[in-house]
């Protein structure tokens, strides 16, 4: 049996241009299998472009992205994705149930192994909204449904683009607990675009800081001190370490000043 590479996602010299505008330039990094990686950076730094490129939704100008050593197209179906903005026709009469049932459309049978809709709706506390129309949901409720949909199948990789936008503080805590839980139980690799310092420090194993180029890629303790991240969150970030239940090291941080 060939040994699996430590990096599930390998990005080499990635450049993406939209006309004259360079969204990402010469980015090289690897995402470890089973890790939770946060992607941070100022607005327009190429975070969403990077995650969309990983799932094949952006045209790559130069460089390569591979998933388990294979082109992205071969990994489609193994990746769950929650977009930053989900735009759809809000007047379209489609229920939450019908929307979630769509994920049973799969090219390969192994991608169709699904959890029950009841279970994922329960996980995101949306059970009562099952027969509601998708267009009638609030921004936060829609976000929960998108997360539920991504959780409906066992995926090797989950890419979440600002998943906590529109979700209240309690919902945010539940979401992060859920991410940790799935990561621990299913060894799912998470790549999460987030501005939430609390999430980065408590949840992520690695932090990628972008500003069209790769500024740093390190553990949260080191990455939060690197220049790009310090500029983003303020110069006085402090990180406190503590261990919870004797296993996963957990971090706490706050921005001062």
């Amino acid at each position: 049996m060939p040994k699996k590479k430590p990096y599930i996602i390998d990005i080499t010299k990635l450049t993406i241009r939209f006309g004259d505008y360079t969204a990402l330039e010469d980015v090289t990094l690897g995402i470890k299998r089973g890790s939770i990686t946060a992607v941070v950076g100022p607005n327009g730094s190429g975070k969403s472009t990077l995650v969309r490129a990983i799932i094949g939704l952006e045209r790559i100008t130069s460089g390569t992205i591979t998933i388990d050593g294979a082109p992205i197209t071969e990994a489609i179906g193994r990746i769950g994705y929650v977009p930053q903005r989900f735009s759809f026709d809000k007047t379209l009469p489609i229920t939450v149930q019908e929307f979630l049932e769509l994920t049973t459309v799969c090219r390969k049978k192994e991608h169709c192994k699904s959890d029950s809709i009841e279970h994922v709706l329960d996980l995101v506390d949306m059970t009562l909204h099952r027969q509601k129309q998708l267009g009638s949901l609030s921004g936060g409720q829609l976000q929960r449904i998108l997360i539920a949909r991504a959780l409906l199948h066992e995926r090797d990789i989950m890419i979440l683009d600002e998943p906590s936008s529109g979700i209240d503080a309690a919902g945010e805590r539940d979401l992060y607990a859920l991410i940790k839980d799935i990561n621990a139980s299913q060894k799912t690799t998470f790549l999460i675009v987030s501005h939430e310092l609390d999430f980065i420090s408590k949840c992520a194993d690695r932090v990628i800081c972008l500003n069209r180029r790769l500024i740093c890629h390190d553990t949260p303790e080191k990455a939060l001190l690197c220049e790009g991240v310090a500029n983003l969150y303020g110069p006085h970030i402090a990180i406190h370490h503590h261990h919870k239940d004797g296993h996963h090291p957990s971090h706490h941080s706050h921005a001062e000043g």
Partner: protein
Amino acid sequence: MLPDVLQFAFMQRALFGGLVIAVLLGWVGVYATSRNMSFVGAGVAHASLAAVALAILVGWSPLITVIIFSILLGTLLYVLDTRTSVSRDTAIGILFSAGMAVGILLLQFHDGYVPELMSFLFGTILSITQIDIIIVASIGTVMMLFLFLLRRELLYITVDPDGAYLSGMNRTAVELFLYISTSLAVVISIKLVGIVLVSALLVLPAAIAKSFATSFSLFVRYAICFSIFMVIFGLVLSFYADLPSGASIVLLGTVFFLSARLLTMK
């Protein structure tokens, strides 16, 4: 004893053809309107004047010619919309007028009055032949079968094209199917409703159904029912009142639409 309207062979053909067309346009219209493709129907219908004129000029079957033309046009529109920076509006606008211009030019080479042209432009019940019915029913049945088999995929690309791609389904094939089926559904209906008005049959049933539907499955069912109602009653109205069939169907549908909006107004 059959009612008056069913005693004539031409009305039997029109009603049967109308039924097939109503189901097809009502069904396809749900996806076309939800994906903002309503004007694909209008564009293809008007551009098909080129194929009608060519068929009249060289003596081919106009219906078969427009069917082949619509498949090519649907494919071209798909390519322009998804593979180039040309917007869908622009592509339709160009093909719409270019097709009509070619049609008008070709008809310049035809001597004398062309009665068949009027039936294609405005739709008449009398012009539908037995052969037309066989063609419409055959194509309609095959398309309905595909619409049924691909119903989930079509909904997926309608609601969430990126999610559809990530599910691993062949999004290109499903989108291309939608473009071609929209084009085909429109052109096989032009003898009954006419080039000028046919796209209304793609839009109106879905627009009426949307007022009442609380789920997507109901949306499809209601659109098909309203479409059948519009076409059958429009044809009966045109028979008894001696009105053009296309105009009767479209005006009846417009009255239904306005009534539905008034009824569901909050």
